[in-house]
């Protein structure tokens, strides 16, 4: 059956699946072309090893089929490495993943290109496999990795989108967050879940829209005196038909990522796309589309694009180099008019020729129309209408029989910074159908009034990866419900002795607006007492004190304070030895503090928060900066209630954005809490603690100081980690809270 030589090789392959016999000869021939003798030895022994794992003929066939090409590309050591990996994989419960593993190798080789890279890729896959393979009683690994097969199936796409580094980060994220949740793990690795896609976006190579949003808005505003919403879309998930930029009344759609291309950076590609759209917005007037054929419209769009670009380059000549780099350069004669439709090719050539003086085309029709185009635009920039006339003429002159062919040549005709020009057409009739007069009925979509505001999303810090989890927490804010304001008045009345004492302290704190600074060498006025003393010294021959002037300076209090209350369920506890619950004591303390600050006249707001998992963090307003401590505010304080848990980071981030908007020299966030940050969907204590710490770091970089008043006697374990030394006080004797809080505040701010 085989020739002698091939039979010799066949003998070395210890594998008896009948399926192999059919193709073995071809495989060996392939090998002989691609591999050395040594390589063939390794190849056959590798295949024998894979045959021995007992997973049927499929893995062996894939190995035999794919490896020669892979080894040819990466070098022969890969043969041994792959067979060993497959062997290792078969020793785990993940045998089912072997065929997908083998199948993803050719694509990985093509993408990664070197042996080292492929080795790293395989190491990443094995690392993921080890971490996700489950075990019972922590003894034997027995449960196959739920996500591995999905990961391998998607790896060609992933490698296309991510660098190896990015892939590793993306996989690590999935492993870390969904290791105990097989279904979610599968969703993540099959790119079904939302955060899987979000993570993918974040790890992608190229220039992300999100990173440059502000700059692009500025670009539009500064160079084009225009403003618009930008709506990013993702070209990553639509393989068949790539979306293109466009704009309508809802905003400008741009891709969410641009790779560098032909020497133009991603950021500049964004700018060019926006410049093109801005030019349309500035110079294009919509025309009626109904009387033009599709080809005519295509031509009109091309010429109009060229026209706005011409005008754009008149204003900003420096952009030409980018346009030249980004605009495709169709090769004259590349399109075979016998076999394919050259409509697009022709128009792209025309467009290139208009843009590029050194186009080198010789087609007389193209040259003629370039001439016509320039004649038109050099007269005051021309108009969309005039372009339409030229385009119709061009379509008529250049028409060919083959234009109708379904094989349209697309190569080198896509100008990716141009939008789809939907804005330049007005349609009189909606469609061609005669019966279309039966217009669709207006369907009334009942719009539900939302309760409260839509959620705000905040990122959360993951200390394990040292990254933010994007949009992780949903925070709902609302005004706290009210009860009777008289309750608070009663509290204030109860503490009126304390209030009197506080009042004395406050009088000393009251700002003195204008202070005299004496003993100044240079000042605004002569300080006569000192001056005369100096003069006497001078006349007596002694050295006079030259500091004889005085000046004035302002000494105002300019503080904005945000008091953030933890309203978690534990507040309802009654501490040992006390008669009131922590909630009641807090209420009293906050009332007194509010009264104190109102007396001082500082800017002051009160808010409370609690959380029920990351999907529902509640943020309540008690008092806003513009409100006084009046009955409305008191009524809200009176209704203060406690429930759920303490997810502090999001509340701090949210409260800080109110505080940031205050104009004050000093900004202080006071946090009153009775325990460490915790929530029921978080197992790791350290996680929310480190997130809170991160949130405080963030606000302190925005110039907001924070101070925590903790009622947790055991707070010493964690509180210094969060607030740092000197950033907190622990109040052991909770009953003293109403007294301590205002004093603490005055001490902090005096």
């Amino acid at each position, binding site marked *: 059956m085989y020739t002698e030589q091939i039979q010799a090789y066949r003998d070395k392959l210890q594998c008896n699946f009948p399926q192999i016999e059919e193709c073995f000869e071809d495989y060996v021939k392939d090998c002989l072309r691609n591999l050395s003798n040594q390589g063939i030895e390794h190849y056959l022994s590798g295949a024998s090893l894979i045959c021995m794992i007992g997973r049927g003929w499929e893995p062996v066939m894939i190995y035999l089929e794919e490896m020669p090409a892979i080894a040819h590309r990466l070098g022969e050591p890969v043969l041994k490495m792959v067979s060993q990996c497959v062997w290792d994989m078969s020793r785990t419960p993940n045998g089912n993943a072997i065929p997908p593993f083998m199948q993803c190798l050719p694509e990985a080789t093509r993408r990664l290109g070197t042996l080292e890279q492929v080795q790293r890729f395989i190491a990443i896959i094995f690392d993921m496999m080890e971490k996700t393979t489950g075990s019972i009683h922590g003894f034997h690994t027995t449960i196959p990795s739920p996500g591995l097969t999905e990961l391998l199936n998607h790896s060609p796409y992933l490698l296309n989108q991510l660098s190896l580094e990015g892939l590793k980060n993306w996989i690590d994220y999935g492993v870390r967050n969904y290791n105990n949740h097989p279904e979610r793990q599968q969703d993540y690795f099959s790119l079904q879940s939302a955060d899987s896609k979000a993570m993918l976006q974040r790890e992608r190579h190229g220039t992300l829209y999100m990173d*440059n949003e502000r700059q692009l808005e*500025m670009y539009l505003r500064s*160079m084009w005196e225009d403003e618009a919403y930008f709506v990013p879309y993702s070209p990553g998930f639509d393989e068949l038909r790539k979306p293109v930029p466009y704009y309508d009344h809802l905003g400008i759609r741009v891709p969410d990522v641009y790779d560098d291309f032909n020497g133009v950076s991603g950021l500049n590609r964004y700018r060019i796309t926006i410049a093109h759209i801005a030019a349309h917005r500035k110079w294009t007037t919509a025309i009626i589309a109904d009387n033009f054929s599709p080809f005519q419209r295509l031509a009109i769009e091309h010429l109009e694009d060229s026209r706005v670009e011409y005008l754009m380059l008149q*204003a900003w000549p*420096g*952009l030409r180099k980018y346009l030249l780099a980004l605009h495709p350069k169709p090769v004259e004669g590349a399109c075979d008019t016998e076999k394919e439709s050259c409509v697009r090719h022709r128009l792209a050539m025309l467009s290139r020729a208009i843009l590029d003086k050194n186009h080198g085309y010789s087609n007389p029709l193209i040259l003629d129309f370039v001439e016509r185009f320039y004649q038109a635009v050099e007269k005051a920039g021309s108009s969309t209408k005039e372009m339409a006339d030229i385009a119709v003429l061009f379509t008529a002159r250049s028409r060919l029989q083959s234009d109708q062919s379904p094989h349209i040549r697309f190569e080198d005709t896509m100008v990716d910074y141009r939008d789809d020009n939907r804005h330049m057409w007005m349609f009189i009739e909606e469609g061609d159908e005669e019966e279309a007069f039966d217009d669709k009925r207006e369907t009334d979509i009942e719009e539900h009034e939302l309760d409260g505001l839509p959620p705000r999303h905040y990122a959360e810090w993951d200390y394990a990866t040292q990254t933010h989890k994007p949009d992780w927490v949903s925070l709902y804010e609302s005004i706290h419900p009210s009860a009777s304001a008289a309750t608070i008045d009663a509290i204030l009345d109860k503490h009126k002795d304390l209030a009197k004492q506080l009042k004395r302290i406050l009088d000393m704190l009251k700002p003195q607006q204008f202070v005299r600074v004496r003993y100044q060498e240079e000042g605004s006025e002569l300080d006569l007492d000192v001056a005369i003393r100096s*003069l006497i010294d001078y006349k007596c021959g002694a050295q006079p004190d030259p500091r004889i002037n005085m*000046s*004035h300076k302002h000494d105002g209090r300019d503080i904005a304070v945000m008091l953030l209350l933890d309203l978690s369920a534990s507040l309802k506890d009654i501490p040992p030895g006390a008669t009131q619950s922590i909630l009641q004591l807090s209420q009293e303390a906050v009332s007194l503090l509010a009264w104190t600050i109102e007396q001082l006249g500082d800017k002051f707001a009160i808010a409370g928060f609690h959380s029920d998992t990351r999907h529902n963090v509640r943020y309540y307003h008690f008092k806003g900066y513009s409100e006084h401590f009046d009955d409305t505010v008191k009524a809200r304080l009176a209704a203060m209630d406690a429930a759920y848990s303490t997810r502090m980071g999001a509340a701090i981030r949210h409260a800080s954005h109110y505080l940031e908007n205050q104009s004050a020299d000093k900004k202080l966030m006071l946090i009153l809490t009775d325990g460490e940050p915790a929530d029921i969907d978080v197992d790791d204590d350290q996680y929310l603690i480190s997130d809170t710490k991160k949130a405080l770091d963030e606000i302190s970089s925005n110039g907001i100081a924070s101070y925590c008043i903790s009622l947790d006697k055991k707070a010493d374990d964690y509180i210094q980690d969060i607030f740092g030394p000197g950033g907190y006080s622990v109040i052991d004797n909770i009953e003293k809270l109403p007294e301590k809080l205002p004093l603490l505040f005055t001490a902090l701010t005096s």
Partner: protein
Amino acid sequence: MTDIEQYKITEQPFYAEQEDEIALYEAAYAARLPVMIKGPTGCGKSRFIEHMAWKLGKPIITVACNEDMTASDLVGRYLLDANGTRWLDGPLTVAARIGAICYLDEIVEARQDTTVVIHPLTDHRRQLPLDKKGELVNAHPDFQLVISYNPGYQSLMKDLKQSTKQRFSALDFDYPQPQVETEIVAREADIDTDMAEKLVKIAHAARNLKGHGLDEGISTRLLVYAATLINKGIETKAACRMALVRPITDDADIRSTLDHAIDSIFG
């Protein structure tokens, strides 16, 4: 006595009229009405006053106001000398005595209680009481008070009192029209109009960002600086970055946007 000549302007300062402000100012001066000049920084306020002083042939005394300035810095104070104390007139008093135009530049920088001392000079009394010296100075018939005021970066803290504002007639200044600005830049820095026109375009790109990250756009003065650097042989883009972009912002996004604008203009 004070030397009047030192306050006179001998050479004609170049000034390109934007609208009819020269005629308006002349009318205000004829009636000795106090004038307030409003406008963004570097748009030519001070140059205009200098030009007018030259045109009218009057001395001009300029005071750059600052936060530490007190009433005695304007009016005058007692100084020590070997024999005791000696009174020294402040610039405002000098101007009132010799009949100069007193120009208080960036008046909002001074504290509100300081600016109150100008009140008696700005209404029908035209007097300046020196209470410490026990003297009442009657203003010279040629004396006029002019203040400049930049509403652009006024914070809540820095504003004029209503009682101060309502003593002045006001002229609103803005950056000149592109053609005029081009002419100014070309003339001041002695460069060709084509280059000046491009510089003005960059300035307009930056001025569009005012309120969106920039407190003030690129001023005419900065354009002249850039043009001067170009004239000295500095490479165009480098000169623009140095004179136009770096001074006005530390915001990386704005820098990059403006650098791109420069790149787009000069290719």
